[in-house]
């Protein structure tokens, strides 16, 4: 690790769907300062060396979840990863693993986005409360039950970290199942039964083998592995309760 400034070698996995059959690596040398992030390096390359380099980014402050990349083989937000920690390099940047690569560092996110509505990520009420009745009140303890899962920014690092998702793209995956838990654990929500089919499905919680890597790479402190595996208990309970015909959820 270096505290000062200098130059760092960066190897970037490039892929042009119109020319390449598979990605190849290109080397760039960029200057860095103490506060330069990997995203800064990518922007430097795009602005001054090669304008054709493609990657996603937006907020630069670990909120938008756009700039996830594989950095030396580990899924990380490039805005939250600093060059000083990798100097003098080389630093290897690739597109997020397990997703189809569209171009260079840009991946196809449909494998996650298309499934998103299945989580029913909104508050579901059996009966809507009239506005005149005021807000749904919640105690700090009730809020704490979903505080960590609500921090998810959909950056998909957890999917790039999950070998099960790599092998089974139909797996609902860490962020989606953490989102299910975020709403199920919310005292204002009454939609657990509507979300049980997703939890119970073959591609729901039961496709997780508790590798735990999703939680290790999460930049926001969400613990998807815990959210998923706690729901295995819920799923098993739901199965037996439905078996006894007193259950709620269902998996058709």
């Amino acid at each position: 690790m270096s505290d000062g400034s200098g130059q760092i070698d960066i190897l970037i996995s490039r892929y042009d769907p119109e020319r390449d059959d598979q990605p190849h690596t290109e080397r760039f040398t960029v200057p860095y300062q103490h506060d330069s992030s990997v995203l800064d390096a990518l922007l430097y390359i795009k602005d001054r060396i090669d304008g054709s380099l493609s990657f996603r980014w937006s907020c630069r402050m670990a909120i938008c979840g756009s700039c996830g990349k594989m950095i030396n083989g580990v899924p990380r937000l490039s805005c939250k990863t600093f060059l000083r920690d990798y100097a003098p390099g080389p630093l290897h940047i690739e597109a997020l693993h397990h997703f189809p690569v569209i171009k260079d560092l840009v991946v196809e996110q449909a494998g996650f986005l298309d499934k998103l509505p299945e989580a029913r990520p909104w508050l579901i009420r059996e009966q809507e409360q009239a506005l005149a009745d005021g807000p749904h009140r919640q105690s700090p303890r009730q809020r704490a039950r979903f505080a960590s899962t609500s921090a998810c920014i959909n950056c998909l690092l957890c999917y790039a970290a999950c070998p099960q998702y790599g092998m089974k793209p139909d797996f609902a995956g860490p962020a989606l199942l953490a989102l299910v838990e975020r709403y199920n654990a919310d005292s204002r929500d009454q939609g657990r039964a509507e979300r049980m089919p997703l939890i119970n499905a073959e591609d729901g919680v039961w496709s997780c083998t508790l590798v735990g890597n999703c939680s290790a790479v999460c930049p926001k402190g969400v613990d998807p592995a815990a959210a998923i595996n706690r729901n295995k208990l819920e799923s098993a309970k739901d199965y037996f309760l439905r078996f006894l015909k007193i259950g709620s959820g269902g998996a058709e």
Partner: protein
Amino acid sequence: MKAHYQRPMGRWYLRPFYLFVYTLRELTAVFVLLYALILLSGLAALAAGPEAWASYRQALAHPLSIGLHGLILVAALYNSITWFMVAPKAMPALFIGTRPLPGLLITLAHIVVFVIVSVALLVLAGAG
């Protein structure tokens, strides 16, 4: 335009190291199963009569059997401890007020109980 590039999975179960740790955790379960089968066959031998029981014990005392048991012990310890490490993720969430109970505390509690039970069993076996 060509299709998107899908990276092959390769030998993901060997590298990086933390995935190898996971792979070993899953593989060592086979040794735990093996030990359960050895215990079960002991039970069957006991039910079959004194002669079967004596030959079962004789087989256990064979150097190969002792070596195998050593291997099983190491594998079972690895399996147990790595599972204790992920136990906080596999149990209902516990809170103290608004703060989640630290996972490390849950793992340590598992290990402490594991040590106490193991020592108690060894003492009981010695006394027997």
